[in-house]
């Protein structure tokens, strides 16, 4: 059923009319034109659509809009006001990306990891990041960037 919802995204309220079952992913991409959050699988298996819900990494393709009222949603566009989050800076410094499509999701997962665990071990990184797929194979650079961001925090 089409309903009106007010979502708090990147610290700003957004009112949208949408099917109550529409996943946050498509609200962001098709309704609000926030294209940084990517569609990869639609079944919560690849992590390309990762956003933060109250600071925790979640798969936006699995979250119906009706469950999100009055919660704080952060997307890659709002990760840092000036786009200078330590994880973003480390990603540039290590020159992580190849095609780049999965990297918004990787960055959002990495930022959530460091928030809950500022000095992760290699194993912590492996475990936390294993839900984010990269077909280009940038995993070793991702790990290096996370370690670098952790060291500079």
């Amino acid at each position: 059923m089409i309903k009106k919802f007010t979502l708090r995204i990147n610290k700003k309220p957004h009112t949208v009319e949408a099917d109550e079952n529409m996943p946050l992913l498509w609200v962001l991409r098709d309704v609000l034109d926030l294209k940084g959050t990517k569609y990869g699988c639609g079944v919560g298996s690849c992590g390309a659509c990762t956003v933060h819900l109250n600071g925790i990494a979640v798969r936006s393709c699995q979250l119906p809009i009706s469950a999100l009222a009055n919660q704080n949603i952060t997307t890659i566009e709002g990760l840092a006001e000036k786009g200078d989050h330590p994880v973003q800076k480390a990603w540039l410094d290590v020159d992580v990306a190849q095609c780049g499509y999965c990297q918004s999701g990787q960055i959002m997962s990495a930022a959530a990891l460091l928030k809950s665990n500022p000095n992760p071990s290699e194993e912590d990184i492996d475990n936390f990041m294993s839900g984010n797929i990269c077909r280009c194979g940038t995993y070793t650079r991702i790990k290096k960037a996370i370690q670098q961001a952790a060291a500079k925090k």
Partner: protein
Amino acid sequence: MKKTDNTYSRRSFLKVSSLSGGGFMLGISWLASAKPEENLAALNVEPIWQELTSYIKITPENVIKIFSPNPEFGQNVMTSMPMLIAEELDVDFKSIVVEQASYNPALFNRQFTGGSQSIRSAWKLLRTAGASARQMILTAASQAWNVPVSELTTSKGQVKHAASGKSGTYGSFATAASKLPVPKDIVLKANKGFRLLGTPQKNVEGPKIVHGQPLFGMDYKEAGMLIAMTERPPAFGMRLKSFDATVAKKMPGIVDVFTIQVYEPTQKLAMFDTRSFNEVIAVVGKTTWDVMNARKKLNVLWENAPDTKEIMNNRETIVPGGLESTTKHYADMLAMDKKPGQIQRKDGEPEKAFEVAKHVIERTYTAPFLAHNIMEPTNTFAHFQGNKVRFVAPIQGPDFIANTIATRLGIPKENVEINLARMGGGFGRRAYGHYMVEAALISKQANAPIKLVYSREDDVSGGIYRPTYQLTYRAAFDENKRLTAMHIKGGGIPESPLHANRFPAGALDNYLAESWSIPSNITVGAFRAPRSNFNAAAEQSFLDEISEYMGKDPIAFRLELLQRAKANPVGKNNDYDASRYMGVLELVRDKSGWGKPENAGKKRGVSAYFCHNSYAAQVIDLHVKDGQVIVDRVTSAVDCGVVVNPEGAKNMAEGAAIDGIGNALFGNLTFTDGRTDQKNFDTYRMIRHNEAPKKIDVHFVANETDPTGLGEPPFPPIFGAMANAIYQATGKRLYKQPFGNQLS
């Protein structure tokens, strides 16, 4: 100093006089890279671009823009191609603006990303473009200052005249320079004079990527745009019988539902026109979610398709009907091995050598179909209006599909406008542009701009796959365990992987190569290093096994064979350079500490392969714990000639290792009654973060050879190195990919 040869067409240097406006394609400012906005914003005026060759534009304020001609899918040509221009133009790379060029065969050569050829084919061409523009600026400066060109020097976008102390920006001479003829007989820098090439430069689109800016085809949107998806047969070998869209059409946001024929039944198809299904149901609506939901409400009857005739590449082929299954595929391939194949190459008297052999080793290797799993699912924007169509497309080979689009729509080719979007992966999948034809037909029928989107399930279950392959290797030995002959027989569904003239052909007096194939209705195509990606696994595993039988070190044995091919090659058509092949083996041996006492306890495998004009070798160290492979280290040696951007090149080779390990351990697409058993990442096993190697070291052979390929060559040998290392760790030789499920 080298003179460029004049074999390049000069059409790409067409000089358009003093165009104004930001880029020659309107409506694609979203494709521009991050730096231009800052530079252009500082101007606070509409920039007036002076065009110096089709690759370079400069404003009077000295904002310098370089167009990157080839489609970008993560191989980083958008950085490395402009580097070639910037080197000779003599500008500060960090201050220039890089923009993706649109498809324009009149202005640009070979706008194709594939075959690891972007840099190889652009090496002299793009440098010539940069040097030509610099020469035009020098000429303009010499005329303005009334001094000879020989007294002028350049540095970082400035012209200087030492005697008078005069200096000026490129921009100040751009208007005059743009009116000059494009010079001929341009002299390029010698390699030792490079200042930029060979230095690490960061991905020019990095800032946009980490900030989530809209870059990809999937991100494109314009006013009035609708979303389209297609419902396709659930199995290869099936087709549409009838459908009822009454309920689907009433779903929220749905605009229309109709069928399209991707190609006309009699249309002659070109090599890259492959499509999985010809008649599909298009669902058009306002949002992706609306369309996904409506698809579920379609009431469709599918039926088994008969054998169908198709003309592709001027050859008539029969696409067989029937619902195929993986178990039968493997049985059919084994049966083909017992029948005579087509002889592709024969040196000496291989049959006789096998007759008199004291010992024969025979091994059969297989690999499954693979899906590309490009992270950005297949999509494109299309808007058909009147007799024109405009695309914003993630496409590897716009030139392959432009003709097909024009033919199918009945419009002139020049009315097909293709703007190139960054691709979220390609790996060969986006060389097949049928989705652009589909999108154009849907836009025409819906009378609206549309973006066609495939779901992940559409991509996995109806793809253009890496074929399933089989290779049987036989080696004959005399009483002294000396190798006397080799016989390779291989095929696949529906094509053979055999490269008959590759190593070890040329190193063996007696050699026989045979091929076969089995027709299929499952659609296949290029997948990172086509055919090589399997040949390397089989060949390099077999060489490892026979070197062990002969009591030889696997690297020493390969070098021995290559030395023979170098000193006294057998046959004439050997397509590899034995010296460069040996070079990567020696480099990987030295860098991995192969055979050194400190590495005695390591479980390691070696592999080397040649493809796409380049050479790569790897040593993989691994251990197996609870049935899981843990890769401790990959040492990779690559000879791709001159390395343009070392950091980007290293990233490619690292990615090739991870992608290769993933596909070797897990890659597997299987069929039951024409349907793929895997539909999405919950069932199609991809390598994950925790399964990546703990360490990857990449080493490039230093030489002055003009660049050869890089995107593909480091990928194939990984499969062989994995098999050989797993043997060392477990004592098990593995012959059937994927390996990951055979270790517990």
